[in-house]
Protein backbone atom coordinates (compact mmCIF):
# COMPACT_ATOMS: atom_id res chain seq x y z
CA UNK A 1 0.00 0.00 0.00
CA UNK A 2 1.24 3.43 -0.91
CA UNK A 3 2.08 5.88 1.79
CA UNK A 4 3.17 3.50 4.47
CA UNK A 5 6.13 4.91 6.30
CA UNK A 6 6.36 3.32 9.67
CA UNK A 7 9.07 4.03 12.14
CA UNK A 8 9.82 2.65 15.58
CA UNK A 9 9.12 5.47 17.99
CA UNK A 10 12.42 6.57 19.47
CA UNK A 11 15.20 5.38 17.21
CA UNK A 12 13.69 6.60 14.00
CA UNK A 13 12.07 9.88 14.98
CA UNK A 14 14.66 11.84 13.05
CA UNK A 15 14.33 9.53 10.06
CA UNK A 16 10.60 10.13 10.09
CA UNK A 17 11.11 13.88 10.21
CA UNK A 18 13.57 13.78 7.33
CA UNK A 19 11.23 11.61 5.28
CA UNK A 20 8.30 13.88 5.93
CA UNK A 21 10.40 16.86 4.86
CA UNK A 22 11.33 15.01 1.67
CA UNK A 23 7.66 14.28 1.10
CA UNK A 24 6.68 17.91 1.61
CA UNK A 25 9.45 18.95 -0.76
CA UNK A 26 8.41 16.42 -3.39
CA UNK A 27 4.79 17.52 -3.17
CA UNK A 28 5.44 21.25 -2.96
CA UNK A 29 7.89 21.75 -5.83
CA UNK A 30 5.64 20.70 -8.72
CA UNK A 31 3.09 23.44 -7.88
CA UNK A 32 5.35 25.95 -9.59
CA UNK A 33 5.22 24.00 -12.84
CA UNK A 34 1.43 24.11 -13.17
CA UNK A 35 -0.83 26.49 -15.06
CA UNK A 36 -1.72 29.56 -12.95
CA UNK A 37 -5.48 29.01 -13.19
CA UNK A 38 -5.12 25.58 -11.65
CA UNK A 39 -2.57 26.53 -9.00
CA UNK A 40 -5.08 26.57 -6.14
CA UNK A 41 -6.54 23.23 -7.11
CA UNK A 42 -3.11 21.73 -7.64
CA UNK A 43 -2.01 22.89 -4.20
CA UNK A 44 -5.17 21.44 -2.63
CA UNK A 45 -4.71 18.08 -4.36
CA UNK A 46 -1.04 17.90 -3.40
CA UNK A 47 -1.95 18.70 0.19
CA UNK A 48 -4.48 15.86 0.14
CA UNK A 49 -1.93 13.45 -1.34
CA UNK A 50 0.38 14.44 1.48
CA UNK A 51 -2.40 14.05 4.06
CA UNK A 52 -3.01 10.54 2.71
CA UNK A 53 0.64 9.62 3.21
CA UNK A 54 0.77 11.11 6.69
CA UNK A 55 -2.61 9.63 7.67
CA UNK A 56 -1.49 6.21 6.60
CA UNK A 57 1.87 6.46 8.35
CA UNK A 58 -0.01 7.22 11.56
CA UNK A 59 -2.70 4.56 10.97
CA UNK A 60 -5.17 7.44 11.11
CA UNK A 61 -8.29 5.85 9.67
CA UNK A 62 -10.44 8.85 10.52
CA UNK A 63 -8.33 11.10 8.28
CA UNK A 64 -8.25 8.51 5.50
CA UNK A 65 -12.01 8.06 5.76
CA UNK A 66 -12.45 11.74 4.90
CA UNK A 67 -9.97 11.63 2.03
CA UNK A 68 -11.31 8.47 0.36
CA UNK A 69 -14.61 8.38 -1.49
CA UNK A 70 -16.94 5.60 -0.30
CA UNK A 71 -16.78 4.10 -3.80
CA UNK A 72 -12.99 4.22 -3.92
CA UNK A 73 -11.41 1.83 -6.39
CA UNK A 74 -7.90 0.94 -5.27
CA UNK A 75 -5.88 -1.47 -7.34
CA UNK A 76 -2.90 -3.37 -6.09
CA UNK A 77 -1.12 -6.26 -7.82
CA UNK A 78 -4.11 -6.89 -10.02
CA UNK A 79 -6.49 -6.98 -7.08
CA UNK A 80 -9.37 -4.66 -6.40
CA UNK A 81 -9.34 -3.25 -2.87
CA UNK A 82 -12.43 -1.45 -1.52
CA UNK A 83 -12.30 1.50 0.85
CA UNK A 84 -13.47 -0.72 3.72
CA UNK A 85 -10.80 -3.32 2.98
CA UNK A 86 -8.11 -0.66 2.71
CA UNK A 87 -9.05 1.02 5.98
CA UNK A 88 -9.39 -2.30 7.74
CA UNK A 89 -5.90 -3.27 6.63
CA UNK A 90 -4.41 0.05 7.69
CA UNK A 91 -5.98 -0.42 11.11
CA UNK A 92 -5.10 -4.06 11.65
CA UNK A 93 -1.83 -4.78 9.94
CA UNK A 94 1.46 -3.85 11.48
CA UNK A 95 3.15 -1.88 8.73
CA UNK A 96 6.45 -3.28 7.61
CA UNK A 97 7.71 -0.56 5.38
CA UNK A 98 10.57 1.59 6.48
CA UNK A 99 10.49 4.43 4.05
CA UNK A 100 8.59 5.92 1.14
CA UNK A 101 10.40 8.47 -0.97
CA UNK A 102 8.13 10.43 -3.26
CA UNK A 103 9.49 11.57 -6.59
CA UNK A 104 8.09 14.26 -8.86
CA UNK A 105 4.31 14.42 -8.75
CA UNK A 106 2.23 16.04 -11.50
CA UNK A 107 -1.39 17.13 -11.20
CA UNK A 108 -3.58 17.54 -14.28
CA UNK A 109 -6.82 19.38 -13.60
CA UNK A 110 -9.95 18.81 -15.71
CA UNK A 111 -12.53 21.03 -14.01
CA UNK A 112 -13.89 19.00 -11.11
CA UNK A 113 -11.63 16.02 -11.82
CA UNK A 114 -7.90 15.84 -11.23
CA UNK A 115 -5.36 13.22 -12.25
CA UNK A 116 -2.17 12.83 -10.25
CA UNK A 117 0.77 10.91 -11.64
CA UNK A 118 4.05 10.25 -9.98
CA UNK A 119 6.49 7.70 -8.72
CA UNK A 120 7.79 6.63 -5.37
CA UNK A 121 10.52 4.42 -4.02
CA UNK A 122 9.55 1.92 -1.39
CA UNK A 123 12.27 0.73 0.94
CA UNK A 124 11.32 -2.09 3.22
CA UNK A 125 12.58 -5.04 5.12
CA UNK A 126 11.35 -8.38 3.86
CA UNK A 127 12.23 -11.25 6.15
CA UNK A 128 15.03 -9.15 7.55
CA UNK A 129 16.47 -8.28 4.14
CA UNK A 130 16.27 -4.79 2.70
CA UNK A 131 14.40 -4.41 -0.54
CA UNK A 132 13.91 -1.38 -2.75
CA UNK A 133 11.15 -1.10 -5.31
CA UNK A 134 10.04 1.78 -7.49
CA UNK A 135 6.36 2.29 -8.28
CA UNK A 136 4.52 4.57 -10.66
CA UNK A 137 1.02 5.61 -9.72
CA UNK A 138 -2.10 7.31 -11.01
CA UNK A 139 -4.66 8.78 -8.62
CA UNK A 140 -8.02 10.26 -9.57
CA UNK A 141 -9.64 12.93 -7.44
CA UNK A 142 -13.16 14.32 -7.93
CA UNK A 143 -14.61 17.49 -6.43
CA UNK A 144 -17.89 16.60 -4.76
CA UNK A 145 -20.14 17.99 -2.03
CA UNK A 146 -17.52 17.60 0.67
CA UNK A 147 -14.60 18.79 -1.39
CA UNK A 148 -12.00 16.74 -3.24
CA UNK A 149 -12.11 13.01 -2.60
CA UNK A 150 -9.99 10.18 -3.92
CA UNK A 151 -12.12 7.98 -6.19
CA UNK A 152 -9.47 5.77 -7.80
CA UNK A 153 -5.84 4.92 -7.21
CA UNK A 154 -3.34 2.32 -8.16
CA UNK A 155 0.31 1.72 -8.80
CA UNK A 156 2.39 -0.42 -11.08
CA UNK A 157 5.87 -1.67 -10.15
CA UNK A 158 8.55 -0.17 -12.40
CA UNK A 159 10.30 -3.17 -13.89
CA UNK A 160 11.89 -1.70 -17.02
Amino acid at each position, binding site marked *: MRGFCCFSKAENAMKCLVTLMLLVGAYALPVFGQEPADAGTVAAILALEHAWTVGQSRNDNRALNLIFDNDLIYVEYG*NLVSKADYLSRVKQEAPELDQILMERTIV*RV*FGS*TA*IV*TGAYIEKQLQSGRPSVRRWRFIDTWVYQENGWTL*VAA*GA*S*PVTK
Partner: protein
Amino acid sequence: MRKRVCALLFILMATVACAAQQADDSGIKTKIMALEQLLKLHAYQAKDAKVLDALLDDKFVAVDPVGKLQTKAELLEFVQMSDSLQYLTSQMIVRVHNNAAIVTGLFQLKGAVQGRSLQQSGRFVDTWLFKEGHWVAIASLSTPSK
Protein backbone atom coordinates in the same frame (compact mmCIF):
# COMPACT_ATOMS: atom_id res chain seq x y z
CA MET B 1 -53.16 15.89 7.03
CA ARG B 2 -51.43 18.57 4.92
CA LYS B 3 -48.12 17.63 6.52
CA ARG B 4 -48.62 13.97 5.62
CA VAL B 5 -49.44 14.85 2.02
CA CYS B 6 -46.35 17.08 1.83
CA ALA B 7 -44.20 14.34 3.31
CA LEU B 8 -45.60 11.77 0.85
CA LEU B 9 -45.04 14.16 -2.05
CA PHE B 10 -41.48 14.77 -0.88
CA ILE B 11 -40.79 11.03 -0.65
CA LEU B 12 -42.35 10.49 -4.08
CA MET B 13 -40.25 13.28 -5.64
CA ALA B 14 -37.10 12.00 -3.96
CA THR B 15 -37.81 8.48 -5.21
CA VAL B 16 -38.44 9.72 -8.76
CA ALA B 17 -35.25 11.84 -8.65
CA CYS B 18 -33.28 8.89 -7.30
CA ALA B 19 -34.69 6.56 -9.97
CA ALA B 20 -33.88 9.14 -12.66
CA GLN B 21 -30.33 9.43 -11.33
CA GLN B 22 -29.97 5.64 -11.32
CA ALA B 23 -31.31 5.47 -14.86
CA ASP B 24 -28.85 8.20 -15.89
CA ASP B 25 -25.97 6.35 -14.23
CA SER B 26 -27.05 3.11 -15.83
CA GLY B 27 -27.01 4.75 -19.27
CA ILE B 28 -23.59 6.23 -18.61
CA LYS B 29 -22.23 2.89 -17.42
CA THR B 30 -23.48 1.16 -20.57
CA LYS B 31 -21.93 3.87 -22.72
CA ILE B 32 -18.60 3.75 -20.92
CA MET B 33 -18.42 -0.04 -21.25
CA ALA B 34 -19.12 0.30 -24.96
CA LEU B 35 -16.36 2.92 -25.28
CA GLU B 36 -13.95 0.64 -23.42
CA GLN B 37 -14.69 -2.13 -25.92
CA LEU B 38 -14.31 0.27 -28.82
CA LEU B 39 -10.99 1.53 -27.51
CA LYS B 40 -9.44 -1.76 -26.46
CA LEU B 41 -11.07 -4.40 -28.63
CA HIS B 42 -11.25 -2.40 -31.84
CA ALA B 43 -8.93 0.62 -31.89
CA TYR B 44 -5.82 -1.05 -30.46
CA GLN B 45 -6.20 -4.14 -32.61
CA ALA B 46 -7.05 -2.26 -35.82
CA LYS B 47 -4.52 0.52 -35.10
CA ASP B 48 -7.39 2.91 -35.68
CA ALA B 49 -5.66 6.24 -35.08
CA LYS B 50 -8.82 8.22 -35.77
CA VAL B 51 -10.82 6.44 -33.07
CA LEU B 52 -7.89 6.56 -30.64
CA ASP B 53 -7.50 10.27 -31.24
CA ALA B 54 -11.21 10.84 -30.59
CA LEU B 55 -11.38 8.70 -27.45
CA LEU B 56 -8.18 9.86 -25.76
CA ASP B 57 -7.99 13.38 -24.38
CA ASP B 58 -4.95 15.40 -25.44
CA LYS B 59 -3.81 15.41 -21.80
CA PHE B 60 -4.36 11.63 -21.50
CA VAL B 61 -1.76 9.79 -19.47
CA ALA B 62 -1.19 6.08 -18.95
CA VAL B 63 0.93 3.82 -16.79
CA ASP B 64 1.51 0.42 -18.34
CA PRO B 65 2.03 -2.93 -16.50
CA VAL B 66 5.81 -2.41 -16.34
CA GLY B 67 5.41 1.01 -14.75
CA LYS B 68 6.15 3.08 -17.83
CA LEU B 69 4.45 6.46 -18.15
CA GLN B 70 2.94 7.20 -21.54
CA THR B 71 1.36 10.30 -23.00
CA LYS B 72 -1.31 10.15 -25.70
CA ALA B 73 1.30 10.67 -28.42
CA GLU B 74 3.50 7.91 -27.01
CA LEU B 75 0.58 5.48 -26.75
CA LEU B 76 -0.49 6.23 -30.33
CA GLU B 77 3.08 5.63 -31.49
CA PHE B 78 3.24 2.35 -29.54
CA VAL B 79 -0.02 1.14 -31.13
CA GLN B 80 1.14 2.12 -34.61
CA MET B 81 4.48 0.33 -34.30
CA SER B 82 2.95 -2.85 -32.88
CA ASP B 83 2.77 -5.89 -35.14
CA SER B 84 -0.40 -7.08 -33.45
CA LEU B 85 -2.29 -6.21 -30.28
CA GLN B 86 -5.15 -8.01 -28.65
CA TYR B 87 -6.48 -6.36 -25.51
CA LEU B 88 -9.20 -8.42 -23.86
CA THR B 89 -11.14 -7.19 -20.84
CA SER B 90 -13.50 -8.87 -18.40
CA GLN B 91 -15.31 -8.28 -15.10
CA MET B 92 -15.66 -4.56 -15.74
CA ILE B 93 -17.14 -2.30 -13.07
CA VAL B 94 -18.06 1.34 -13.74
CA ARG B 95 -18.54 3.97 -11.05
CA VAL B 96 -19.86 7.41 -11.94
CA HIS B 97 -18.81 10.54 -10.03
CA ASN B 98 -20.40 13.69 -11.47
CA ASN B 99 -18.91 14.09 -14.96
CA ALA B 100 -16.22 11.48 -14.38
CA ALA B 101 -16.43 7.71 -14.59
CA ILE B 102 -14.02 5.15 -13.22
CA VAL B 103 -13.77 1.76 -14.89
CA THR B 104 -11.89 -1.19 -13.51
CA GLY B 105 -11.60 -4.70 -14.82
CA LEU B 106 -9.25 -7.52 -15.66
CA PHE B 107 -7.19 -7.39 -18.82
CA GLN B 108 -5.21 -9.78 -20.98
CA LEU B 109 -2.84 -8.22 -23.45
CA LYS B 110 -1.36 -10.40 -26.19
CA GLY B 111 0.55 -9.38 -29.24
CA ALA B 112 3.89 -8.51 -30.72
CA VAL B 113 5.81 -5.27 -30.94
CA GLN B 114 8.71 -5.01 -33.37
CA GLY B 115 9.07 -8.77 -33.47
CA ARG B 116 9.00 -9.25 -29.72
CA SER B 117 6.03 -11.08 -28.26
CA LEU B 118 4.03 -9.38 -25.59
CA GLN B 119 1.87 -11.08 -22.99
CA GLN B 120 0.58 -9.33 -19.92
CA SER B 121 -2.38 -9.70 -17.61
CA GLY B 122 -3.69 -7.95 -14.55
CA ARG B 123 -6.16 -5.22 -13.65
CA PHE B 124 -6.74 -1.84 -15.21
CA VAL B 125 -8.28 1.38 -13.91
CA ASP B 126 -9.42 3.94 -16.46
CA THR B 127 -10.79 7.42 -15.85
CA TRP B 128 -13.25 8.88 -18.34
CA LEU B 129 -14.46 12.47 -18.42
CA PHE B 130 -17.58 13.96 -19.99
CA LYS B 131 -16.13 16.89 -21.87
CA GLU B 132 -17.77 19.10 -24.47
CA GLY B 133 -20.58 16.61 -25.00
CA HIS B 134 -18.36 13.54 -25.34
CA TRP B 135 -16.73 10.99 -23.08
CA VAL B 136 -12.94 10.93 -23.35
CA ALA B 137 -10.37 8.86 -21.49
CA ILE B 138 -8.03 11.01 -19.41
CA ALA B 139 -6.04 8.35 -17.53
CA SER B 140 -5.33 4.64 -17.60
CA LEU B 141 -3.38 2.45 -15.21
CA SER B 142 -2.58 -1.20 -15.87
CA THR B 143 -1.10 -3.14 -13.02
CA PRO B 144 0.13 -6.72 -13.28
CA SER B 145 -1.13 -9.62 -11.22
CA LYS B 146 1.27 -10.64 -8.49
